[in-house]
């Protein structure tokens, strides 16, 4: 099962820790906010992503497991 990352843009304050800890998926824009490349996480990257999420001072980085069916209304 793969995972993906998401940013809560309201919580994010552009500390930039996530891009330090997960450069494989995250870069920073010109104002310091994370830009995600949209690719899923596999293997060891999941652990790196979890570490990045824990390091975020505002808990704005989310690591979510992909569910086979996601329902939206």
């Amino acid at each position, binding site marked *: 099962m793969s995972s993906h990352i998401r940013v809560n*843009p*309201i919580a994010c304050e*552009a500390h930039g820790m996530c891009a330090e800890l997960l450069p494989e998926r995250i870069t920073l*824009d010109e104002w*310091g*906010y994370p830009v995600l490349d949209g690719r899923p996480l596999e293997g060891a990257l999941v652990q790196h992503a979890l570490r990045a999420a824990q390091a975020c001072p505002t808990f704005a980085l989310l690591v979510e497991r992909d569910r086979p069916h996601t329902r*939206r209304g």
Partner: protein
Amino acid sequence: MSASAQGADEQPRGADAAAGVLPRLLTGAGEPGAISLRRHVQLHGPLPAQRDGGRRRARPTGDALIEEVARAGLLGRGGAAFPAATKMRAVADARGRAIVLANGTEAEPASSKDDTLLQTLPHLVIDGAVAAGEAVGAEEAIIAVSELAATSAESVAIAIEERERALSGSRHAPRVRLVTVPGHFVAGQETAVVSHVNGGAAKPLFTPPLPFQSGVGGRPTLVSNVETLAHIALIARHGAAWFRELGTPAQPGSALVTLCGPVAHPGVYEIEQGASLASLIAAAGGAEEPLHGALLGGYSGTWIAAGLLGGVALSNEHLAPHGATLGAGVVLLLSADACPVAETVRLARWLSDQSARQCGPCLHGLDALAAALEQLAAGGGGSRPAQRIERLSALIAGRGACSHPDGAVNVTLSALEAFGADFADHARNGPCEACTRPPQLPLPARPSSGERRHAESARR
């Protein structure tokens, strides 16, 4: 398509809801003042009862209306055109007692269709909220109105009182209450209204959970535009087949549009979905000036250049080839003597000011986008401003909690495409003669949603 548009100020054609006849929603809208409960029942008949005094969720009968709305193919009229029945079913199926939130905040400055409904036909909206509320098992329906729309709020308040007097002991279950919401642009976004009703800031929330999962008071909440609910009030009376007698198979029924610009009678019209733009303009007394283009769908919408307007029909399927949608029904005509570059620059700055200032990419990105447009319009920057606009657009879209930044990018890019020659001319030669003419797009001095100090310091 004949008889495709009916103005709000024209006389209604009778109360029998004849097949394929307009107006539907705007029946009685031409009469002076708000339609009273008595007159409303005279015009439309009583709202059919869906259950017989049951206290708990009345699933079998509630489902009947949801099924009828599904068969009618009603799409939401707040802008997103989401299937109304799908939303109703999601709320009905969610755990917990549901609630209805009728969104009449109409934050779109060029739109006045929700205001028209609330001001003149409040009982139609309330009927829809009550019928939808019964269908999803709600015990309360909240009508949300912008605090800038005092007349609408008063009209709804009076209508609620009228119903409480007349319908005490009625079989219709949900209590109805009025809530006023701050007037800034993004305050009308559905999670912002929910947040405000819950005692928080009137700003969009990070989703999920979406309101149908956890909305007002944490309950499953049916947030629907007031026009959507007004259609439900009529579908509950006349059924899906009647609804489909107008419109196209993919977009059945009628729709309210707000027509702005150089026509004899700008205002709110009820059209058949798929009616030609030409028929709408004709119903409004015709264009009084040559046009430069039209903005479809409001301030997050799409510009179409004048040369392409001849074939435009007003439904999302017809507008798709133009990259446009009807959105919340705004059709804004720009006269040929306006400068589309100056209008776009002003709009981009206004949209930047209306950011809720919660999300960095929106707060900084829309400001940078407006600055790049200002630079382009001033001329002398070579190709750099245009390149910057392109880069910013790709960078900003999709990175806010709500779709405000996406809308601002969309309307900007569509202006660049529709009025490419005008932008190229400004980039080379700077401001044109028309740049100094009075603005045509209505951009009211709305309260900013951000902290006032912050908002002011950001503006030079």
